[in-house]
């Protein structure tokens, strides 16, 4: 593996290409978390610890994409603060299983948010993604949806999940995809098919850390 491969890291090219792709501002701290998650030598406990931290940061950033309105509030010193208020009517949807790792992070930020689930399995032979289970809040069509899936290598699973959401009348521009690690191919697959979807990730890199779910849930 050549050095060139090592250096494709910040994914800036992709951001320019796809205006709806947002990459978490990569500071040293985030780089360290990514390094720990990628490192073969990382213990499970450290892995989960760092994963939870990175998830929290990605979720916080995803919430930035939600709609808000300006509002003024009175502070205890009776002064006015020009703040803003998020609109209600959001919900989370996690893609089973690794997407569920991100649910807690979302709960930590939005205590009573509704969370739906989709189970997508890929066929062992054809690699075709198939929806096995889906359960959403009833009025999901009117909501902004935070779709959670940490690792994307082909983008097939997510594409399938987005299709299902659209079948439930969720507007494409109301879907925000929260993701930790993503390959260029997955960006292409998802954003070419759903150009209005907003996608947020912490890293675009040719090699996806596919061990994530197994290591996080301890089933390796």
């Amino acid at each position, binding site marked *: *593996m050549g050095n060139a*491969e*090592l*250096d494709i*890291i910040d994914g800036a090219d992709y951001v320019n290409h796809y205006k709806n792709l947002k990459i978490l*501002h990569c*500071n*040293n*701290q*985030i*780089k*360290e978390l*990514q*390094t*720990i998650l*990628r*490192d*073969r*030598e990382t213990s499970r406990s*450290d892995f989960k*610890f760092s994963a939870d*931290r990175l998830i*929290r*940061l990605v979720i*916080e*950033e995803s*919430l*930035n994409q*939600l709609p*808000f309105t300006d*509002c003024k*509030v*009175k*502070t*205890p*010193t*009776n*002064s*006015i*603060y020009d*703040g*803003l*208020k*998020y609109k209600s009517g959001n919900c989370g949807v996690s893609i089973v299983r690794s997407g569920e790792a991100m649910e807690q992070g979302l709960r*930590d*930020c939005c*205590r009573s948010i509704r969370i739906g689930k989709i189970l997508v399995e890929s066929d062992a032979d054809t690699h075709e993604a198939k929806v096995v289970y889906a359960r959403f809040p009833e009025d999901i069509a009117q909501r902004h949806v935070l779709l959670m899936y940490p690792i994307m290598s082909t983008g097939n699973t997510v594409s399938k999940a987005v299709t299902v959401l659209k079948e439930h009348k969720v507007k494409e521009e109301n879907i925000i995809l929260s993701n930790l690690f993503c390959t260029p191919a997955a960006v292409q697959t998802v954003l070419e098919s759903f150009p209005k979807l907003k996608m947020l990730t912490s890293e675009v*890199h040719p*090699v*996806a*850390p*596919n*061990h994530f779910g197994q290591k996080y849930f301890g089933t390796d």
Partner: protein
Amino acid sequence: MAGKIINIFDPPSSASSESDVGETQADFSEVFPDCEGDEEKSGDFYNTPASPITVPYCPRPPSTGSQKSPRSRRQRTTSLNQSSKKSAAESMIRTQHRTIYTAGRPPWYNSEGQKVEPLIIGICGGSASGKTTVAEKIIEALGVPWVTLLSMDSFYKVLNEKQREIANRNEYNFDHPDAFDFDLLFSTLQRLKEGRKVEVPIYNFVTHARESRTKTMYGANVIIFEGIFSFHNPKVLEMLDMKIFVDTDADVRLVRRLRRDISQRGRDLDGVLKQYCGMVQPSFNHYIAPLKVHADIIVPRGGENEVAIQLIVQHVHTQLQLRGFKLREELAQIHARSGQPRPDTLKLLPTTPQIRGLHTFIRNKDTPRDEFIFYSKRLIRLVIEYTLSLMQFNEKIVETPQGVQYKGKRMATDKICGVSILRAGETMEQAVCDVCKDIRIGKILIQTNLQTGEPELYYLRLPKDIKDYKVILMDATVATGAAAMMAIRVLLDHDVPESNILIVSLLMAESGVNSIAYAFPKVQIVTTAIDPEINDKFYVLPGMGNFGDRYFGTEPSDDLLQ
């Protein structure tokens, strides 16, 4: 005299909870001196005195007997216990009449963060002349917090084999200047004068060596230094701002010595007299009495001389007032002018909609408390994560399970610790623990004196070897910056390099940022928002009110606020 010291430092019966904790800890570390644990009690933390009225354990030189409290008749080997008890009681001095709480140290530096030198009082006089009594009476009458009492007895030289034999025969002259380590004494006093932490040796009169334990002392506003040769060394003499010679009649001193050595230390008359005539008295006449010429004040009759002590105390008060200043007001005024460029050391979190949204909840006075806490925690987590990104990182290439290498980064140091400024800063501790496994957390209690409006230091407890750590100093809000500056000053006095300190808060006032940056240009300042103004109660405007009160639910009711 040793007996007297112990009287004064009996463990307080009605001690504050802080000093109770201190005592438990001291005893515990006493039992397991080498225990290395994470719990506070295992001696990992300094039992930092809320104030250093520290009368070091100092048996008189000639007494090779036991250093014992009047109640117990055990050998001096128990002295460790006594000294640890003493350290537990450091936050107060108990006298027969009242208890002086020595907590609440007012600023010992000016608005530029530079230290103002403490007043150093030297007390000299013959053996058993009543130096310690005079010192204690001065401390009692002064009634100011943060007084350090340093005794020369801590600085006896370590004896070699031969000298030790002589000492065991009562023939070693402990009353000779050569018996003292003046270099160490000088450097210790110098550091105290600079307001730094010092480790004062504990001299063991059985082994004639220094114990491995030392006594931790801090710079103070008043330092009292007493000893038979306190005026002997010219360098030391030069440091003293006020020189007192206690002149007690030789007969009285002999009587005191006889009484003490015979009735309390079980020595025989001949032995005491031999030592007195052969060494103590000649030494006094030859070395100590001539030192009287250096004195500013000569106090006849020692501690009984109330008039002299009153005069001294008045003088000290005048001196302290001359050095006093209005720090907080000064801070608020100096940097109030706006339009200054923001300092480079300021690291402001990018103001995303998310941050503004959180601020909206936190600042709104009608936000219920559970929401206030919830959104505060989220904001705190973000600021702490951001703070960590400001640390030093090294490039590191790791092997991945996918079989390719990954060029990543790892933090250059794992020596990071948190220090919270009580009370609001404590709200940020959890977040630090959530992002750094097993991080050590120190605490500093700084309260505003309601009369003077000045910040005062009450309590501190910091991880051992804090000088080797990157320190995340936490306070929820920074208005004038007075408390933050005091906390930074404390860290600097503990030898933490300025560039290793990050002051982290949720909200700062423009003037606080400027004050801190101006006084400590290498300290990194991390915050999520900066407000332009401070009101006359030193609250930030528009601000978020008293963060600690709102978080902990202790805010006064509305009508009290008006």
